[in-house]
């Protein structure tokens, strides 16, 4: 079995007083697409934000690339973050600058590449997400789905070995969703990118998931392959696949 790339152990997380995640443990393996699914509000986004240490857990440990991150010091963690791409649920593009400038941020800040090369890289990534014509536009001038794709382009601009996506296909039509799924599969197969992806979209899960982790009210209800998930006999999970 491939080595673990994300390893979460007994993670408890809370916002102020209400605990959202209860002893969550799971492992995502290198080269896999691990899908996190579960009902709205069950804590998927919260989990993802803890994986990049936007919040510190109440208890438990998180390892990325085999390194414990909750106790890591800042410069070390910054260096690690450069190997991680993150697509936020709302896209989170900087609103005051154009799409191309947004996508160029990691390149400008973390590499010594000359501007021509940066521009070329940006155009390349925009083509991947089928946004060739949106370079000069401001995020506010894009549709919700376009913004999502632009944000995806930004999250993979440094070709990170590990990618976190929060609902990449929310707000996309079925055809675009499929196109995006194929793109993710290509990134996995051609670049060996490992991914942890939050999604509700069943057809999408069926296309991309190597493994599924089903969260229910902050508890891991199931962890295994897609096939096992469908036949695991757990009522909530069966309903999820049937209704989706």
């Amino acid at each position, binding site marked *: 079995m491939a080595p673990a790339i994300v390893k979460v152990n007994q993670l408890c997380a809370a916002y102020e007083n209400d605990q959202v995640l209860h002893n969550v443990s799971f492992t995502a393996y290198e080269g896999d697409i691990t899908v996190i699914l579960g009902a709205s509000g069950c804590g998927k986004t919260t989990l993802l934000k803890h994986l990049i240490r*936007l919040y510190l857990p109440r208890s438990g440990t998180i390892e990325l690339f085999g390194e414990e991150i909750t106790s890591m010091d800042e410069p070390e963690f910054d260096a690690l973050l*450069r190997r991680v791409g*993150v697509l936020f*649920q*709302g896209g*989170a*593009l*900087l609103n005051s600058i154009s799409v191309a400038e947004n996508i160029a941020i*990691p390149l400008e*800040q973390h590499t010594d590449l000359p501007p021509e090369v940066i521009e070329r890289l940006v155009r390349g990534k925009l083509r991947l997400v089928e946004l060739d014509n949106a370079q000069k536009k401001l995020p506010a001038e894009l549709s919700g789905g376009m913004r999502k794709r632009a944000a995806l382009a930004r999250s993979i601009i440094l070709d990170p070995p590990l990618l976190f996506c929060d609902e990449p296909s929310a707000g996309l039509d079925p055809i675009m969703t499929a196109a995006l799924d194929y793109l993710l599969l290509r990134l996995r197969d051609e670049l060996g990118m490992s991914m942890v992806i939050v999604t509700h979209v069943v057809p999408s899960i069926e296309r991309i998931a190597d493994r599924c982790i089903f969260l229910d009210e902050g508890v891991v209800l199931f962890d295994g392959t897609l096939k096992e998930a469908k036949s695991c006999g757990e009522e909530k999970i069966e309903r999820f696949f049937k209704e989706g």
Partner: protein
Amino acid sequence: MLRITDQDQRIILEGEMGMAQAREALAELKSRAASLPGPEVEIDLAQLRRIDSAGVAVLNELIEWGRLNNRTILLQHSPDQLREAFKLFSTEAASTDTQVDAGGFFYRLGNGMVNVWESVKVFLYLIADAAYFSMVGLFNRRGIRKGEFINQAVLIGVNALPIIALISFLIGFILALQSAAQLRQFGAAIYVADLIAISMTREMGPLITAIMFAGRSGSAIAAELATMVVTEETDALRSMALHPTRYVLVPKIYAISITMPLLTIISVVIGIFGAMVIGFVYLGIGIKPFYQEVLTVLFFRDIVTGLVKSLIFAWIIVLVGAYYGLSVKGGSEGVGRVTTAAVVASIFWVILADSILGLIFYFGQGLEY
């Protein structure tokens, strides 16, 4: 139409109970239920023809009220429509929020102190971060938004020039006018020049500029950062191994640290010019004697006092704006709230700092002025 009657231990509802009737129905039901001996009160719904979500809420509310007033409310004979509506709208099944015990006086006092201390800690961290990244940024441009310094200098400084110039002129003008009336009685009209030169340089110039900056830039900084927090832009920056303080705030700190002292100087000069106009027109003091009087009264240390003040005000405005912006809670509505709060707080802190600095400079110079 809704008719409420009671019989023995029962309250009978007839007709329909909807949005339009809800308010009166609730009051009526409560008062009737209260007047019955209890502890069980039956509500007969057999004659109720129609109910909507408001009607269901009334019944829910009544049950809740009963629980708090030693009455057990029993709903009876619900027709089918009502039962369906109840299933759809009732809040009974959903868990109601557990009441957090507000606690006694000392508990709340202690809690309040902890919260204040938490805020102070956050603010101190922000100051430390800002100071550290501003120093580092002087030698290493990494991690700071490209081209943002010039941008911000124009936005914060240059664009504020016309309004600051106008207000300074008017303040100098008014101050001179007010003092001229007094000084003239003693035949000491020329001292208008001394008065205005000193007060503009040490006090009014830095203060006017700071208040205008707080209104224009403090609010803008708070709003920008708050919006970035709300739209997760700050999270995104963090995920790209960038620090929001460094990336967004440092260019603003540089810009305001340069533009604010410059604008303060301009404000002082224009304020004195305003006084000069009064001196010339109203007191008959020539431009040249006025100018010479100003030069003899102003010392280097007055100018330094003014500039030091303006620099400190500048940092207060940026940091208070950033603090409020970053501590935004509750979506886009929160943005408006913190923006207003930032302006009020930064003006307050500027004036407080002005008083403290005034005392420091005053005693620091051995009471000689």
